[in-house]
């Protein structure tokens, strides 16, 4: 008995240590950039992990410049629109894939898999030229379109995995209970599909929020430049002397939504990512 509890405490301790290791490994870079963002220009080069003097000046600076605020609006707008469209189109396709029998289904799955692995840089040159000709270059739709394209495979995979888990017997049961097709969908299937849609939306949003290559290639001005792209153009030429603090503050700002998602929806995100991997 005594040895039993001892081994479990020791096992717990060992796992605990490993846990701490993982947490440190994952968090240090994030905390570092956060720490820099709170430092004053005088102390920013002291190399201390914890700021000696705390300041919010960096945040004040970035929210005072159009460059950042525009970029933030662009980022949010573009990511939200792309997410909405990708989830709607993805849900339609995923429903068909998981529930209906039609020729060409395998082809669609194959094509979306190919796109998921497609080297995005291969698209940059033709899209650059095509969008210039169509007048889409440096516009919101100009970024939304490629985002939808690359988010769709992700959406289709995750959603078909979710849809396959829905017990479709319930649809039959609802019909037997006197529901019309519409009622069966609205009152029985939709509530069950909602968590899957929500999870997929988070994953797709993270993907769009994250993109850098398209953002710097297919934009040229503040009109549609997103935050990641804008960050790399914070040269500090005239507006700020040293851009480091501002860059870090901006970086922290766009990290906040991600942290919130991860904190509140950890379970969903994990299940979304893993259910897509083990084909449902």
């Amino acid at each position, binding site marked *: 008995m005594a040895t039993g509890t001892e081994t479990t405490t020791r096992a717990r301790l060992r796992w605990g240590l490993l846990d701490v290791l993982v947490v440190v490994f994952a968090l240090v870079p994030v905390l570092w950039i956060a720490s820099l963002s709170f430092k004053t220009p005088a102390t920013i080069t002291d190399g201390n992990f914890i700021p000696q003097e705390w300041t919010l000046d960096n945040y004040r600076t970035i929210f005072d410049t159009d460059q950042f605020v525009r970029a933030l609006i662009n980022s949010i707008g573009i990511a939200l629109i792309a997410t909405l469209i990708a989830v709607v189109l993805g849900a339609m396709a995923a429903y068909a894939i998981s529930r209906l029998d039609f020729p060409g289904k395998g082809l669609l799955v194959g094509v979306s898999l190919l796109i998921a692995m497609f080297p995005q840089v291969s698209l940059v040159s033709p899209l650059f030229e095509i969008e210039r000709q169509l007048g889409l270059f440096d516009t919101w739709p100009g970024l939304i379109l490629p985002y939808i394209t690359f988010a769709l495979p992700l959406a289709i995979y995750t959603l078909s995995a979710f849809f396959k888990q829905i017990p479709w017997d319930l649809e039959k049961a609802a019909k037997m209970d006197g*529901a019309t097709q519409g009622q069966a969908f609205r009152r029985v299937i939709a509530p069950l599909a909602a968590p899957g849609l929500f999870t997929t939306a988070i994953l797709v949003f993270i993907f769009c929020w994250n993109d850098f290559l398209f953002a710097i290639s297919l934009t040229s001005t503040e009109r549609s430049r997103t935050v990641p792209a804008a960050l790399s153009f914070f040269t500090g030429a005239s507006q700020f002397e040293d851009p480091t603090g501002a860059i870090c503050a901006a970086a922290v700002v766009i990290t906040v939504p991600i942290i919130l998602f991860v904190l509140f929806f950890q379970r969903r995100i994990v299940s979304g990512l893993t259910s897509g991997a083990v084909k449902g």
Partner: protein
Amino acid sequence: MADIVLDKVSKKFPDGTVAVQDVDLEIADGEFVILVGPSGCGKSTTLNMIAGLEDISSGELRIGGQRVNDKAPRDRDIAMVFQSYALYPNMTVRENMAFPLRLAKLDKETINSKVDEAAKVLELTSLLDRKPANLSGGQRQRVAMGRAIVRQPKAFLMDEPLSNLDAKLRVQMRTVVSRLQKQLGTTTVYVTHDQTEAMTLGDRVVIMRGGAVQQVGPPQELYDHPRNLFVAGFIGSPSMNFLHAAVQDGSLRTALGDVPLGDRIRRELEAADAPRELILGIRPEHFEDAELVDEDTRRRGLEFEAPVEIVESMGSDKYVYFTVEGERASAAELEELAADAGASDFSGAGSNLVTRLSAESAVAEGQSRRVWFNLEKIHLFDPTNGRNLTLHEGRAAGALAD
């Protein structure tokens, strides 16, 4: 309440396969009918057609005298219990049971009183506010039944409602289902692949195979007078023993000795196209330890001696397995039954005979034993089409009938 009539109902799938072939069935008002058969026999398809979840390819379905072929499930006023229970996970037990009533737009008070009443019958009252995820298998099953009875439909359809429960609970729920059906007196069609459930529950049993009805009747009649090899093998546990038998000089040569034949059977066998090879069927309980048989009974049967392989003492009686020499009985039906039992590639060794002897029998493993069997209770089947040759005007009369 209503009667259900299937008139030459068939189901043909788009690729040409026929799942259900010309099923004729009249289910009386308040009757409890069981559809039973092995996997793929068409029983669930038949049930789904009655439910309206599956289109009827040809034939007519009438509920309460009304043709309902083209009616949506919601307009047929029948309730269904699913094997998976199909409880709505986002609703509480109360909401689950109230769902059909709410769809029917009943007022709140009526809904509540009906749900409470149904919950009381099924002893669900204390669970009404739980979600299905927090219920045990048996409780979920009861909720599924509750959802079906709450709106007092014309008929209940049950698709293997007990097969997800463990063995003990299944037996218990069987009586619950039976009692409930008698209480409510609602016409019920019940699908199962379990012959025990079929035997114990139904007023009448419909045995299906390959989309076609094999025999319809009260359980005891199917047991005593199976129309063919398939029905004989499917009903009964342990199942009927089948032995190869050859017609020779007016009697039957079998591994258990020469079986004498009665006049009627002999006449039939003398016809030109009669088979020379037959299958002999004997139920386990029609054997007895030869020592325990009195003179009078002995004359009505035959004796043989065989080595005892295994003795299973059940307390009330003994299941004794004998090894017998000789050719195995073979017919398509038997293969199919073995495949359904999952034993098509595992036969054990040799040809086994299962017998059910009195508990007093002093039989022991390893020794040889004289065993008697009742000639009046045996069945003879034509291996080419499975027909029961001993059946005359619907009655089986053994080998000696004249």
